Structures are given as structure tokens and as C-alpha cells.
């Protein structure tokens, strides 16, 4: 179980110190937990705080009872935290097979690497030897990014807007990937998303806006308000924008 206790983060900007996250406390223990809310509200920052890419100014992060706040990205990864970047990183010379092998943390054969690629809807033999560089489209990179998290199979997987850029691929497939992942490996999947259909599979929805935790609850509690046009958070507009 992941627990965030009173997480705050502020960054220096040209106009002085800006508070990006303010006193956020929450627990992630369910199968699927979704974080949603307007752009610029602090969702991605929160995901990076969990993965260790950003050190919070205040607060503690607890994973299965251990305080991991001061642990590096690597140590968190080795303790079972995976993170799929919103904008996947490109590498000159590193192939898809290399990246999936690094993710798996052991020598894996081409057929196993291909399985992960097939799961995210890529025809494996076309991709396995390609470099993870600018020759791949945003959508292809995004799916490879998800495949690396599948290959890791850890107890906590964090996805930052996995749906962005893969609009030609049906959301049903993406949802199926998450469901299969849980079936095979268990653990919790934390998804930052604007997509109603992803929010719909969540056991718990967390709404972050203006750096604050606005709402937390089941989808039955949260979704109706999010989707009502007069709702405080214009989620429908957001989902239209990303689709």
C-alpha cells in the first residue's frame, strides 16, 4: 500500500516561490486508482513525487509501511514502483528490445519481449529491433512506455496520462491492458487520466486541482459531479480536448 502524508511541493519561478502541491494526503490500496483534474493542477507533479523524480518540500511517502521519502528513483524502482512517463523519453541507439530487457531486469528472449509489445497492440517483429528514437511516433513511444511497465510487473504502477497520443487505438484495449496487468501481477495501478472511460474502471477517484486534493471517493460518488456541466471541475471539456 502506498500512503502520502501531507505532501507539499513548491518550486522557484521568476515570480517567486510557487506552491504546486499543497498538503496532500491519500492512500492507494485498491486495484485501480485514478487521479484526475484540470491541466496544471499538480497531477503529474504528484506522480513524479511518488516515483522519486521530484523530492517533496514537505510530507512523507510510505510504501508498505516503509518510509521511502528519501530513497532515490532507483531504490524506489527496486522496491516495486514503476512509472510510465507522460512524454516518453527517446534514446539514440537503444532498441525496443534493450529497453524491455532493462525493464524486466533479467535476460529475456525475443519472444517474451514480443509478448509485452503485442499486449499494447504493436506488431512485435516490426518494432523489436527499432531504436527508441525520433523515428517512432508519439503514439508508438507511448505504447512502448506502457510495455516497459508491463515487463517490470511491480506492485505499484503509475501511469501519467497513458491515453494521450494513442487515440487510434481503442480505449477498450488500453483498459484491457490494465485489467490483464492486475490479473497477472496483482498490486495497485495508479492512473492519471482525463478520460471518462478510464475513470469508469477506477475503484477510487482522486480529484486534484490548484495543487489541492479536492475530492476523493468511489466513482459513484465522484463521476456524476465531474461530468455535470456545471460541476466545479470541467472534466467533460477536458476529456473532449484529449480525445
Amino acid at each position, binding site marked *: 500500500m502506498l500512503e502520502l502524508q501531507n505532501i507539499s511541493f513548491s518550486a522557484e519561478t521568476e515570480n517567486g516561490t510557487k506552491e504546486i502541491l499543497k498538503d496532500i494526503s491519500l492512500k492507494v490500496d485498491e486495484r485501480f486508482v485514478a487521479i484526475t483534474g484540470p491541466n496544471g493542477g499538480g497531477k503529474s507533479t504528484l506522480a513524479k513525487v511518488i516515483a522519486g*523524480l521530484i523530492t517533496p518540500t514537505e510530507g512523507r511517502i510510505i510504501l508498505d509501511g516503509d518510509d521511502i521519502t528519501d530513497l532515490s528513483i*532507483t531504490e524506489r*524502482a527496486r522496491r516495486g514502483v514503476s*512509472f510510465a*512517463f507522460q512524454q516518453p*523519453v527517446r534514446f*539514440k541507439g*537503444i532498441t525496443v528490445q534493450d529497453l524491455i530487457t532493462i*525493464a524486466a531486469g533479467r535476460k529475456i528472449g525475443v519472444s517474451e519481449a514480443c509478448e509485452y509489445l503485442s499486449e499494447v497492440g504493436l506488431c512485435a517483429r516490426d518494432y523489436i529491433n527499432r531504436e527508441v528514437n525520433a523515428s517512432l511516433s508519439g503514439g508508438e513511444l507511448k505504447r512502448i512506455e506502457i510495455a516497459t511497465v508491463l515487463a517490470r510487473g511491480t506492485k505499484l504502477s503509475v501511469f501519467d496520462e497513458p491515453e494521450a497520443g494513442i487515440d487510434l487505438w481503442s480505449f477498450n484495449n488500453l483498459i484491457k491492458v490494465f485489467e490483464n496487468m492486475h490479473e497477472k501481477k496483482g498490486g495497485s495501478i495508479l492512473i492519471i487520466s482525463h478520460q471518462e472511460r478510464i475513470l469508469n474502471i477506477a475503484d477510487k477517484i482522486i480529484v486534484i486541482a490548484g495543487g489541492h486534493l479536492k475530492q476523493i471517493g468511489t466513482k459513484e460518488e465522484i463521476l456524476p459531479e465531474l461530468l455535470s456541466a456545471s460541476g466545479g471541475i470541467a472534466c467533460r471539456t477536458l476529456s473532449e480536448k484529449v480525445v
Partner: protein
Amino acid sequence: MIDEIQKNLLREVADLDNLPVGAYNIRANGKSESRATTANIDIVTKEDGKGIDIYIKPFTKKESLHIPVIISESGLTEVVYNDFHIGEGADVVIIAGCGIHNCGTQKSAHDGVHSFYLEKNARVRYVEKHYGDGDGMGENIMNPTTVVELAEGAYMEMETTQIKGIDSTSRKTTAKVAEGATLIVKEKIMTHGKQFAETDFTVDLYGENSHTNVISRSVAKDTSRQIFRSNILGNAKCHGHTECDAIIMDDATVSAIPEITANHIDASLIHEAAIGKIAGEQLAKLMTLGLDEKEAEEQIISGFLK
């Protein structure tokens, strides 16, 4: 007889554990150590003894030639001239390479001048690896010069690699490319410590529809220095592209000086140059996959130079 140190050098520069199949000439400590020729590939020592002439018969296919040079005596300095005459329509692989093991205090140097004369429609893949080791204080120095002349429709691909142990290198390559001929150069260099590496390419695209692509990838570590120069001359309707991409680390210095000159209205020339450190997000991504920072850095470099 070849000893263990020399065997290791051979492995590093030519991937050889035993004598190669096909034609070869192994030069060790300034002398020809062993040689084999085939019906189609002849190797002849020059009259002054300072190199060899290699004759590859027209339309020779699927043959390879190994010409490694190894130096394990400290203080040996030599200049070698090797001329390759590739007959019309031949298609061969040539594997050269130079390894120096210097455990003394004097500098060891190998300056090789390789000249390639490709006849009409000949194809050559030329692979050259430079490697140095040794625990002494003596410097390992290599200054290779490559001269390429491509006749009509000829094709040459040149892969050069210098990853370890060469303290100082100055590489000069000049090429003349005729009608419909193509020259591809792929260079990989990694320098560390106080090493210095300089490369200089001049390609004259003088034939109609001639083509060249000069690609250099390098990594400069510690306080090493690198200079990359390339000049592509478009003297006819042609395509030329030069690209150098360097990763800079620690306190290293890298200069990239790409130059393109068009002397013909239909010359199409492009140069690209980039120098930068390893991107923080690349390290972060590999660390989220469980690598530590050092391992992530090694992965990025080895991929970049692959």
C-alpha cells in the same frame, strides 16, 4: 609466434581468436607475421618493405580480407602504406584494425596510410577498429590516413571505431566520388583521461548523382579533447550529408566544425552537428526501470556508440 598479449590485441581489433578464413596479412611489431592469399585476392609486399599492395580481381564476390596490425613492443614507431586495388564489380569485406599494448615508458605509434582504388561498380565494406592498452606510462598514438577513390557506380562503406586506450589520434580521410558512386562513413569515438582525438574528412563529390553520408558519434569523458571536421564539396549534381553528434561529460572539450561547399547549382548538401550532455530525463527513465545512475549512464553511452 603470436603471444597472449598479441592474441588479445587481435581479438580486440579484428574479433579474431584464430587465423581468419580467406585472405589475410597480420603485421606484428613492424614485421609481417603471417599471410594468406586466395585465387582472387593477392597481397604483395612493397619493394621498400613499408607496406603492401592488395589486388582484388574483378567480380570477386563474398570474400573477405583481414589486415590487422598489432604492436606490443614499447617505443615502436612505424609508418605503413597499404594500397587496395579493387577490381570492377567486386564485392568484398575488408577488416583492418590496429591494437597497441604498451607497457613501457616510450611512446608507441602506428601511422597507417590506406588508399582504396575502387573500379567501376565495385563494393567494399571497410571495418577498422583502433584499440590500445598497457600498464606503462608510454603513450599509444595512431594517426591513420585514408584515401578513397571511387569510380563510376562504386560503393564504399567505412566503419571506424576507437573506443579505448588511444592517447592521441589524428585521422584524415579524403575521398573523390565519381558519377553514381556512394561513400558512407560511420565513425565512433570515445575518449577518456587526457586523450586527444581529431578527425578530418574531405569528400569531393565530382560525379553526377554522387552521394556521401558522413556520420560521427562520439563520447568525450574526463579531460579529453575532440575535434571533428568535415568538408563536403558538391562539384556536380549530388547529395551530401554530414552529421556529428557528441556526448560531452566531465571536463571534456568537443569541437564540431562541419563545412559544406556547393560549386554546382544542383548540389544538395546538408550538415548537422550537436553536442550535449546526457539528458537528465534519459537517466531518470532508466532509473525508474531499476538501474542506478552509473548503470544508466553506461547503457546510454553503449547504445549511442553501438
